[in-house]
């Protein structure tokens, strides 16, 4: 039953808290980081069952905010995990806290993919996001990555920020394209509770402009493989294998404060309280979700349909013993053009991705067998 081949590890520390960020994060403090890493080691030793992993993703927070000694400690913990030969091993970094020595260290531990938080280079945007960027450093760091052989690089781009103009977005896109990287993740600014922006009463940008920006991004990156609603890779070999694991509804470990995982029939979230965590109390209260077959199927649909691959109907049947239309009828949606059926794959056409929730809800409404 259990088939875990991916692992997410959360490093919840940042040197600076961005106005929009809802992830689990705390200000960097050397002593707490040390304690945290000790605890992480215990947590992983307790839960890891020896599987060979295809992807490991170190996310945050800002993992690059750790000092070299702490990074060494982190990697020594991760070294105990069994890695497959062609593992995708990603770490998230911020340009503020990265330098050549950390990159060398990553390289030495087998990191082969780096995801950088760039978000924007526009003055208006950076002010609203409470961020800063040094374009020259960006270029320099990415060049160095390529030089030492870490050449699968993602940058995050954020758009639809208040007062952002189409020209601002084009400037961001031009810059990102000039970096000659392999992957771009984009997302419109989402206002989350408990963020500075929310508390300050930030208002969303007009839906029309938001959509226009999304369409513009898709246009600009049209020579990329647009393989998921918000994700573009230079070609299909550079798709994020780790994120694909989420969207294919595959299982993954979640380690560290505020992480989430999916093992066997259970989805879970780890606590977001550092005190509880350091007291070996890892699970978030009431976070365990015990999945019945139908729940898994719903996840399968919701997640698969985010990707250009869509739902592979053959794998679906292998996994759940019945055809998809035993559970949900979709013929009418294919007729209406809301879904496409090609090569035994059912997917949402690109031009409807931005309203994919409506399409998915329509599919879920066609429920026939519980």
């Amino acid at each position: 039953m259990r088939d875990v081949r991916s692992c997410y590890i959360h490093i919840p520390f940042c040197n600076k808290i961005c106005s929009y960020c809802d992830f689990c994060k705390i200000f960097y403090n050397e002593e707490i980081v040390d304690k945290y890493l000790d605890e992480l080691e215990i947590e992983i030793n307790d839960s890891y069952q020896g599987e060979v992993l295809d992807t490991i993703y170190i996310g945050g927070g800002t993992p690059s905010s750790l000092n070299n000694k702490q990074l060494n400690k982190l990697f020594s913990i991760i070294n105990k995990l069994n890695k497959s030969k062609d593992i995708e091993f990603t770490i998230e970094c911020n340009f503020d806290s990265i330098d050549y020595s950390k990159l060398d260290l990553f390289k030495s531990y087998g990191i082969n993919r780096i995801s950088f938080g760039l978000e924007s280079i526009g003055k208006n945007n950076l002010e609203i996001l409470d961020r800063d960027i040094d374009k020259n450093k960006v270029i320099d760091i990415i060049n160095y990555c390529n030089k030492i052989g870490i050449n699968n690089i993602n940058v995050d781009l954020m758009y639809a920020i208040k007062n952002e103009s189409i020209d601002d977005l084009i400037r961001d896109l031009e810059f990102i394209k000039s970096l000659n990287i392999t992957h771009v993740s984009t997302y419109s600014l989402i206002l989350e509770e408990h963020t500075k922006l929310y508390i300050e009463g930030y208002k969303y940008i007009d839906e029309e402009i938001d959509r226009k920006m999304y369409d513009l991004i898709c246009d600009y990156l049209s020579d990329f493989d647009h393989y998921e609603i918000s994700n573009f890779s230079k070609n299909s070999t550079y798709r994020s294998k780790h994120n694909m694991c989420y969207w294919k509804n595959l299982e993954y470990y979640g380690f560290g404060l505020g992480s989430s995982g999916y093992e066997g029939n259970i989805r879970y979230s780890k606590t977001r309280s550092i005190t509880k965590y350091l007291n070996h109390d890892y699970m978030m209260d009431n976070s365990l979700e015990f999945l019945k077959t139908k729940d898994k199927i719903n996840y399968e649909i919701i997640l698969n349909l985010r990707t250009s691959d869509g739902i592979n109907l053959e794998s679906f049947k292998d996994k759940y013993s019945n055809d998809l239309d035993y559970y949900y009828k979709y013929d009418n949606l294919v007729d209406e053009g809301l879904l496409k059926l090609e090569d035994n794959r059912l997917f949402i056409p690109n031009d409807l991705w931005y309203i994919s929730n409506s399409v998915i809800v329509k599919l879920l409404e066609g429920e026939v067998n519980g």
Partner: protein
Amino acid sequence: MKQENIRNFCIIAHIDHGKSTLADRILEKTGAIDKRELKDQMLDSMDLERERGITIKLNAVQLTYKLNDEEYYLHLIDTPGHVDFSYEVSRSLAACEGALLVVDAAQGIEAQTLANLYLALDNDLVVIPVINKIDLPSADVEAVIGELENIGFNRDEIVLTSAKTGVGIDELLETIINKIPCPKGNKNDKLKALIFDSLFDSYRGVITSIRVVDGEVKVGDNIRMMETGAVYDVVGLSINTPKEVKVNKLSSGEVGYLYASIKSISDVHVGDTITLDDDPASIKLPGYKEMKPMVYSGLYPIESNKFEDLREALQKLKLNDAALTFEPETSKALGFGFRCGFLGLLHMEIIEERIEREFGIDLIATSPSVIYQVELTDGSMILVDSPAKMPRREVISKTLEPYVKVSVFSPSEYIGPIMELCQNKRGSFIGVDYLDEKRVTVNYDIPLSEIVYDFFDKLKSFTKGYASFDYELIGYRESNLVKMDILLNGEVVDALSVIVHKDFAYPRGRAVTEKLKEIIPRQMFEVPIQAAIGQHVIARETIKALRKDVLAKCYGGDVTRKRKLLEKQKAGKKRMKQIGSVEVPQEAFLSILSSGDK
């Protein structure tokens, strides 16, 4: 029980004048319930009645009261107060010999005070005028006495009460015993019992409320319904005190409940006479004038597989609501449903709410329509109770619509706004009567369809809630009527069509399309909304296409939230009806009512 010690009476009043509270106080005073048990408005047993503060279904209760060492049995029959239910008022009146006419000491006589008084006088009841709420700071007892004198009562027959404090209740009970005659029937005659109400109980079948006029009925008797011919054995008899008390027999003059394992709802007609099967009476009691529905609307289950459930619900409701009529109809947009006839808008709302609440069926109600008469070019006349049944314009020679005489009771300072409202509603002025120098009746002839539309709400807002009104049907008049269709995405939605006066079609079309634009959420494509008369489009709005409905980021931690979000979205669509490719929320179908005219 001595027949000469029985008094059967009801309470009639304008809505909100304290009828149910007065009933409660009488229950308390006669020891039927003690104060501790008294929930407000004991007689109103349906949740809906208590919530809305109005009495919808009748209720009968037996009380005992000692006067001069004689024990008297008082049967109090509760009646509804709203204009829509005058039919039920007349039903309960037929079971009584007397009525308490309750008038609010602060508000004085209102439209339905008079309407109900006339009904009681028509039924030859002895009427006892009661001024209630005399404890109110705003009470003006002298003025109300004056009003009552103006309509023919003597000052000394008026009883003053405060149902809230209990003042005057003993005096009232004594007046009831002294003034209201005992029932006239003969205990030794053949059985004649009037069915004045009925309800369906899952365990006992149909339970009827009866007033025995002549003879007596016993448990085990073989009875016959004189109109339907159905024959049953009496399984049980009981009276309501207001706790149910089983009895072995009910004799002439008495009021109680009878059940006989009646499973077939259609065997029981309210107004029918029960007699003994082996010793039947020769003529049945007069029963009731059949009430004709005035307002029609289509009721459709949102989930189409609930059609049979809806039929059953309507049958059960009709059991004690003879005025409700229904027949199956089909709509292209909504599927299978029922065309239902109601006494008025409130009646319609209450039926809808009861179906949703008591039977758990989510409904779509189409906009209400009155019955039009349409004369065709071949000389024949047809009745049209639904826009769908309106013939093509080419074959119509003329159309007629029902008119009502509206009497608006109001403080005189609102004459201006009331007249303005009535003019806007296509009314023709009849006259103004002064009840005294401060209170007037404004009389107008107005098309019934305008009353159905939003007259009541408008009247309340034009007069700060001070005016009340009553109406009666006065016949049909020729009128230039057209059918206005509403098109969604180019398709006529039959359930949204309305019949309107030609001169008012344009503003109505504008108002409806604007309202629909507000109510219908954005869809995956642009949806034009058009109002049209025949091929001629008179108004248009556009619902822009949905541009964004996605969580732009979805990674490991967001997955559960994402699923919950989509499931919530799916649940939210349960109350939407798919019409062609457009998803339309339930309330859109009544938007034609609430879209205020310009």
